[in-house]
């Protein structure tokens, strides 16, 4: 075989030499990566994924891209061995590799297998592949092969996270006997979604209940109980906002952070859905803004996305663990039953138990991680919701944005105060845990 190896090596050297003369290296910009993530976001809005599932769709492709970045740039450290179950990706055979191209390929390839509308992702990657192969076919081919290899490695690991098994596990059984327990809410009265999400393998948490929050205030309809006070607060705050009118600050805040991927609207026999991004996607959007504003390079961009998406992913696991443990009834159900039959929350109540607030947990976790990367004095203009007709809001820091995101759930009429406060704490503990235990940048 020796002669063959020699001949091959010679051939490769000759080819490389030949191409080097003609072809410039393919240049991948941070925008290319951001575009790829944006593409995933758009497809997810169309396909309709629940917030926990969306968090998974973001994170694995990011990790695949990041692991390639870490292969090619020694300032970044692989996550292998640091997060649950991830082993080192195969090393490239040829170190002289266009790592960003490989990272892009891995990102797009994994993303495509996670969303439903594959055609749209395929179309997006095909046009890039075509461009790159024209620019430098050989460099592209090598990087693509490696990118796909890594994607397969990550996919194998991903497939063990129990997601697939949870798809066919039992639906949530509503407890109709206990007045404190969650009931499906108008208008679609959907089943509780993702009742088994706590079984999904987290990245950083050792188990889904590692950061278990304190229990919610004890259910009571006694006027002087903490629970009832918080229930009444939701109602009164909502009534106040409604009186103030559609242009009030609070309504603006509620709508800005709505982040409900599927709001069903019914007008007689006419039904339609207004679809938006998820809470996780909003923070992915903020990450995009931050990397643009900080003008991070490709590798740093991937790093920021990856770490944020990991925080969001673990955030949903931690939150869902609590949601289906406390299984608490939503304010809308109680207000309609005991306070005001015609009351409707400003935001549509999402279909799962109340405590803790998912947006609060995720905002707490993501903001803490982003603060760790970009600092606490990072002011930014958040235009994430512009495509949905919602104006820009400006924040002095990630933490302040998270505070507002959490509070928006009270304004929206979908959470009690405790779910917001404790949710934010839960998320920030998670963010801190990630910042303290995971080393990505050397």
């Amino acid at each position: 075989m020796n002669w063959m190896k020699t001949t091959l090596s010679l051939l490769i050297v000759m080819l490389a030499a030949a191409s080097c003369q003609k072809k410039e290296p393919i240049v991948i910009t941070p925008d290319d990566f951001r575009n790829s993530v944006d593409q995933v976001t758009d497809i997810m809005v169309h396909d309709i994924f629940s917030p926990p599932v969306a968090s998974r769709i973001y994170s694995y492709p990011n990790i695949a891209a990041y692991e390639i970045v870490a292969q090619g740039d020694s300032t970044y450290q692989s996550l292998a061995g640091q997060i649950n179950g991830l082993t080192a990706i195969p090393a490239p055979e040829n170190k002289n590799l266009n790592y960003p191209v490989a990272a892009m390929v891995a990102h797009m390839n994994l993303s495509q297998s996670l969303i439903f509308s594959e055609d749209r992702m395929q179309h997006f990657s095909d046009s890039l592949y075509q461009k790159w192969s024209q620019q430098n076919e050989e460099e592209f081919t090598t990087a693509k092969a490696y990118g796909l290899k890594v994607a397969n490695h990550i996919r194998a690991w991903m497939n063990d996270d129990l997601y697939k098994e949870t798809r066919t596990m039992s639906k949530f059984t509503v407890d109709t006997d206990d007045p404190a327990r969650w009931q499906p809410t108008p208008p679609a009265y959907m089943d509780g979604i993702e009742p088994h999400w706590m079984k999904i393998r987290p990245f950083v948490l050792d188990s889904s209940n590692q950061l278990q929050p304190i229990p919610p205030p004890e259910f009571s309809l006694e006027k002087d109980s903490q629970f009832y006070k918080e229930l009444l607060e939701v109602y009164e705050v909502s009534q106040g906002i409604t009186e103030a009118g559609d242009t009030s600050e609070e309504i603006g805040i509620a709508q800005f952070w709505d982040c409900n991927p599927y709001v069903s609207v019914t007008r007689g026999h006419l039904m339609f859905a207004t679809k938006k991004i998820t809470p996780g996607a909003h923070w992915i959007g903020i990450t995009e803004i931050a990397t643009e504003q900080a003008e991070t390079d490709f590798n740093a961009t991937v790093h920021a996305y990856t770490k944020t998406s990991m925080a969001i992913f673990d955030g949903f696991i931690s939150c869902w663990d609590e949601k289906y443990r406390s299984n608490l009834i939503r304010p809308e159900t109680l207000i309609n039953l005991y306070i005001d039959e015609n009351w409707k929350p400003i935001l549509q109540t999402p279909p799962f138990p109340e405590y803790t607030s998912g947006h609060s947990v995720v905002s707490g976790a993501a903001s803490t991680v982003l603060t760790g990367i970009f600092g606490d004095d990072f002011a930014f203009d958040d235009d994430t919701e512009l495509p949905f007709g919602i104006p820009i809001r400006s924040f002095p820091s990630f933490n302040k944005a998270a505070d507002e995101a959490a509070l928006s759930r009270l304004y929206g009429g979908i959470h009690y105060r405790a779910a917001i406060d404790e949710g934010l704490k839960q998320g920030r503990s998670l963010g801190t845990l990630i910042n303290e235990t995971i080393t990505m940048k050397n």
Partner: protein
Amino acid sequence: MGKPLLLLWIGLMLIACESAQEEKTPVRLFETIEATQVGIHFKNQLKEDDSLNILDYLYFYNGGGVAMGDINNDGLPDLFFSSNQGANKLYLNKGDLTFEDISEKAGIEGNSSWNTGTVIADVNGDGFNDIYVLAVVGINGFQGHNELYINQGDNTFIESSKDYGLDIAAYGTTASFFDYDLDGDLDVYILNHAVHTQESFGRAHIRNRRNPMTGDRLMQNNNGNFVDVSEAAGIYGGDNGYGLGLSISDFNQDGMPDIYVGNDFHEDDYYYLNNGDGTFTESLKEYFGHTSRFSMGNAVGDVNQDGRPDLISLDMLPEDETVLKSSEGDDTYHTLKMRTEQFGYHFQYARNMLFLNSNSGTFSEQALQTGIAATDWSWSALFGDFDHDGHEDLFISNGIPKRPNDLDFVRFVSNEQIQKTIRNSRLMDQKALEMMPSGAVPNYVFQGNGNGTFVDKSAEWTGNIPSISGATAVGDLDGDGDLDLVTNNINAAPTLYINQTDKEHYLKLRFQFSDANPFGIGTKAFLYTEHELQYRELFPNKGWQASSEAMLHFGIPKNTSVDSLVIVWPDQTSQRILTPKMDATVTITPKNTVPWNPTRTHQKRKHWNDVSEALGLQYTHQEDNYSDFNVQKLIPYQISDRGPAVAIGDLNNDQLEDVFFGGAAGQPARIYLQKNGAFEYYHDPVIEADSLYENVSAVILDINQDGFNDLLVGNGGNRIQPSLQFLKDGLYLGSANGFQKQPWTEEMVNTSIVTASSKGDFVFVGNHSKPLDFGNSTASYVVSTSKSGLTQHRQEFMVDGMITDALWSDIDADGDEDLLIIGEWMAPVILDNNNGTFQKRSNGVPKVSGLWQTAEAFDIDHDGDTDYVLGNWGLNSKLKATNEYPLHMYYTDFDANGISETVVSLEKNGAYYPLLGLNELAEQLVYLRKKFVSYTEFAGKTMEEVFGAEALEKAKQFQVNTLASGYLRNDQGCFSWHAFPAELQVAPIKAFTSFSEENTNQLLAGGNYFGVIPFHGRFDSFSGSVIRSEKEQESVTAYGLDFYQKSVRHLKMITITNKTHLLVVYNNETSQVYELDENNP
């Protein structure tokens, strides 16, 4: 065009022309004529804009109204059309199908912004028909009020609604003039509709709180002044009343007109029974097991010719496979459960309902069995004998400009379109509306068979022309004696359906009744022919936003002689007319009348007394909250609801029959001991300790031959539970000191039946399925008994299906007992007993695969040998199965996740499709979401296209050839299969028992079943039957029993102080004991 292509094209043309010549235009029963051809230039043109469309007004597409009635007393029905946004029109019928537009001169064009239904009635009793037009006022800037046009007798009208107190400004749909208080004049029921957002259901009780805009109104006529008496009369008037359908009829035949109101969306329909004192009692839940979900128009007709008015209520279930699978369907299991159990609503399903009025006053719903359940987006139903064969036929108008429940529109299209143009979330622009698919479809006509069943004749009788038709009126427009129809269409001229029947006979009745009610509204007519009865009532304000000609029409086939005609006047007097004139219009006036005695219900021939309470034998089975569909999302029915178990036998060695009831999971079993002619609850700690077991079958016998009876309990439950141990069948050995449990089996599967041979030498343990693995095979056993209990000596049998029941019987008449085993997705199996060795019989048993539920031995043909009756799923179901096209079920691991699923498939037009839609399938098989990213891609796809030939090939395939209940008839030891008549097919039959009456054995059958998803509905309509022979059966209501709305699981005869009693055991209900009146001759 190239030469070869041109040639080919010419060739094709030739072929096409030839076949066209051969076909000729068939003569259709109805000639359809566009109204413009006969001088009717009315058109209900909708003007949609950004501020007024389906988004702003939920009933924007409900269309106008049409009223057919004689306004100038020339004997020809004239036509009035109401237009939603335009001028109303009145056309004088000039004969020979020519019409004159007299609208302007008549002064009826109207002033309301939005007109809806219209009806004709002689409101002031002056002998001239007046016109009432409903309006929607008070939303979207709509002005005006309901308008009453009083006929001046000269083809002119004066709007006088204010003078009569009928100038109501609300959300009107339609109205019906009739005499509810029996004081001689016409009152009116005004049907209004809610516009309240149905985003939140609200609780059912909000119907008690009156809302003047949406609430219906009952208006009492006090000398020409109509007064709202709704509240005092017991008429609901809440926010929730989406009133779209209205029918008046003397439903319970007590001589007083009752009201049925169909409400759209989640609000229940209302069934108002007239109390005769000016009030009504709303009684829907008692008399109707379930109703349509999106109730639209409804109509009354005696379709099975028993003299009791039946009812159809329309909904919007499409028949077409592609439309069906791309439209929103029924609620989920949980939503329905919540709405019924927590919110207080009744059971509703999204399809047409045909309610057959039974003689106990309850309505047996049979739309699926009778073939009229799916007629797409339907508005108006009208009965009439269109072909003069003596049976009521049925016309259904349907169609909608845009299908707002198109799933792609709901989930994908609307959003993307909205996002491009949206300013705020409440506005949707025209472009988005246009992206909904069109719902212009042909109207349906069904030919009635006289027994409640129908045959679709739409193509043959009308030619299947797509249209958007709403309000429809029926009458004899051309005066030729048969029934013509006219539909008010949206954005198109009305359509006239001119009836071409000329073969058979007819009889048209008009009435001259009284001053206040000249045309005799509310008059009944019973036409008796040699073998049949035809019943009609005159309530011409009927159908959808419409009213029809005020006459009664009968079709009479040739060679049928009419015996008599009985007229019952609104004042409850009657007169008999012998041999009425044929092929004529007869005007009848009261003459030689006699008081009419209403027969509220048929005389009960027998009366079996309910003695449950007196005997102290009442066991309430409480089904637990577990739903199989939470876990096995695609199984066709629940498996966890097979209880309770019941066994009768002596449990305390006093030679008296005691009763064991086995509970659902979490509910302890109970023993009732017979003492002094009554029963006492006996607490047995050993047995009650096993409350976590779901007991589904039990048998009492002395297994260990120690002189004390023992108890063997078969357990099932099919659930996720802490331990599968609870599936083990329990053996409890009796002694003087109560029961001791004896371990005897390690098997943990869903048992369905434990039964012992009469000598007690064998026990059969029949197993249905493996827990949470429906479709996988499991073995069943014949076990020998001995002094040591149940021996290790057992014979194992596998069958291709899920066993539900087994019967010991000497099938081959060789002196020992053989076994008949039945089950779901299998044909009956016989195990021949050869000296204690059991062998499957390979021949002599018909291979009729069914969803068999129960079996019993009964000599149905009274020839002295034993036949076997078998309860099946019934024919009143969305499932269907024939020998040519069996029902299929595939069992395999479709999504390769290590767990197998079942997918049910049935045939439609020669191809097989999945029974369920993409939403339901993808709940379990998530990969289908990726394979079909839109509903359009999925809809209309066959099983192979959806799942791939390979997966289906690999799968274990089950099939069913018949869903009919019936019997295996024994003719000299050979068995042949025969189906029961239609009356016994309305629900699954779950239990039989035989009893003796006048020294003849009779068979009692009970059933009903609710363990299915809302897609299937609710099998609640079988009251129970006594089967006397192959041909004869009778409802058990004749014995004073009624299993309506209850799921019977066991019918057992029990001897109590030497008298025979019937024990009826239900699922999730309290058992009942009846004393047979044989005991008290």
